[in-house]
């Protein structure tokens, strides 16, 4: 059953090469393993050992401290809100950038990556200035009784800003590859535009949307630089978890800091793993995993 359909790319068979044709396997393997061990694995194992050494009771005591729990809550909720916003905004931007031609499109496309290129501290003081009571946005929002700076809402704004590119850049290529015939086929079968979007386009887009949203969420969980300037950082209300680690460090409470950090890191690594596995499984079905 040879696939002749061009839309289905044959997966590159992972044929093991017994004798390597290309040079540099040993060298590049050596350099890579050395680098990864020294830069990534050694420090991470340090944290694991450090945390394991402190005993379960102390660990539990540290991470269930009410102030820490409150900061977990604030961080997760804000990251959730920020990534939801980015799903909507990112989908809109990807759609507009792929589907339409208009003057200034290139500029719009380029500036989408600004949050990745702009240092987080710069983003932080800028957003704080914009949304402060005397700032350009703060003044307008104050008239409607909305306070952003130095409230949890400010955290959401900062997180959303720093993770804008994730959704746009994961949805964009998927949208570009959608074959126009799918839409024509659906329309010729009598579907309305909205039905085509809901039943033909969205089912293909949402895995990318979830992936992008997931990456945006993961990044927001750990965000520090952009958040601290706008959050106000009042305990129990607007402290994020990264700041909590920092606070414990400044108290020279290394044990507590590493306990909280290991939770944060565990969550992010699980999230990363989940996104990878889930994405792989979904792609397999669309691109011809047999049986």
């Amino acid at each position, binding site marked *: 059953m040879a696939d002749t359909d061009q839309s289905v790319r044959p997966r590159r068979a992972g044929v093991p090469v017994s004798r390597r044709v290309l040079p540099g396997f040993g060298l*590049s393997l050596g350099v890579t393993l050395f680098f990864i061990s020294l830069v990534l694995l050694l*420090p991470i194992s*340090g944290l694991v050992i450090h945390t394991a050494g402190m005993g379960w009771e102390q660990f539990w005591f540290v991470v269930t401290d009410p102030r820490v729990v409150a900061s977990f809550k604030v961080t997760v909720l804000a990251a959730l809100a920020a990534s939801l916003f980015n799903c909507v905004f990112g989908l809109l931007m990807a*759609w507009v950038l792929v589907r339409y031609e208009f003057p200034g499109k290139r500029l719009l496309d380029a500036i989408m990556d600004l949050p990745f*290129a702009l240092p987080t501290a710069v983003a932080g003081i800028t957003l704080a200035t*914009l949304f402060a009571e005397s700032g350009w946005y703060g003044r307008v929002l104050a008239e409607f009784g909305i306070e952003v700076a130095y409230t949890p809402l400010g955290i959401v704004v900062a997180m959303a800003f720093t993770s804008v590119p994730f959704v746009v850049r994961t949805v964009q290529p998927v949208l570009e590859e959608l074959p126009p015939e799918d839409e024509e086929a659906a329309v010729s079968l009598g579907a309305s535009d909205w039905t085509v979007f809901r039943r033909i386009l969205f089912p293909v887009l949402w895995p990318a949307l979830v992936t992008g949203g997931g990456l945006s969420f993961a990044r927001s969980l750990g965000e520090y630089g952009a958040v601290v300037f706008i959050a106000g950082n009042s305990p129990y209300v607007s402290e994020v978890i990264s700041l909590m680690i920092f606070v414990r460090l400044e108290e020279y409470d*290394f044990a507590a800091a590493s306990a909280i950090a290991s939770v944060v890191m565990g969550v992010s690594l699980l999230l990363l793993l989940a996104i990878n596995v889930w994405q792989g499984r979904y792609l397999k079905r669309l691109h011809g995993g047999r049986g």
Partner: protein
Amino acid sequence: MSAKHHRVGDGPVIRRILIGLAVVLTALFLFMPLVVIFTQALAQGWAGYIGNILDEYTLHAIGLTLFVALLTVPLNTVFGVFLAWLVTRFSFPGRRLLATLIDIPFAVSPVVAGLLYLLLYGSNGWAGQWLGQYDVELMFAWPGIVMVTVFVTCPFVARELIPLMQQQGRDEEEAAVVLGASGWQLFRRVTLPNIRWALLYGVILTNARAVGEFGAVSVVSGSIRGETNTLPLHVELLYQDYNIVGAFTAASLLAGIALITLAVKTIVEWRQSRSEEF
């Protein structure tokens, strides 16, 4: 052929609404912050701006930041190229694991990254204690800053190269081997010309992140003015001293680097799409 396809959402009304919405939201959310940075930085005029840059501590922060980037970027470039070569040109067990490991710095909070190094190399860490016997202090000094910056920025070059090299396949390199090219000739004459634009963008992005890293660096630097203060830390310091104009002056330098990064990315993508067309 030039046939236009029948696609949903191409109606003039919906089209205008969506484009309008996208432009307005982007202007408010992404463009405005840039305007703020530069208007605040220039609030005291050009003379004030130059004066703020020439401030002793600002100059020192610029110097330290450039120094850190100068060490970090080449290191991560070499590593990124080796990693990309390894995972796209050979099949071996653990290949996918390796490609996933490299994403860790993306997923880890920068504060946690800083903490990792502090725990290991700080005066309480086992490596730190061992080094301490020889009077070597890595944390709260420039080597610590370089180390965490390397950690945070190590994925960028590889992440730019891997998809491209995967897509290009290894046919051309195999052909070169058949024709008798040595390893270095192969890389310089066949691989490098194909990946140079992506490599350039990877390097520029690594540089932007190295220059701008804040969370991880603030854990390990100690922020000693005139000693271990990088530009982003200096921005924070000035901001907390209520020297808003000074803070935005320093910030505008970093924003300038960000804009250059975006420009390079746009050019690189344009070159790549052009080379695909012909």
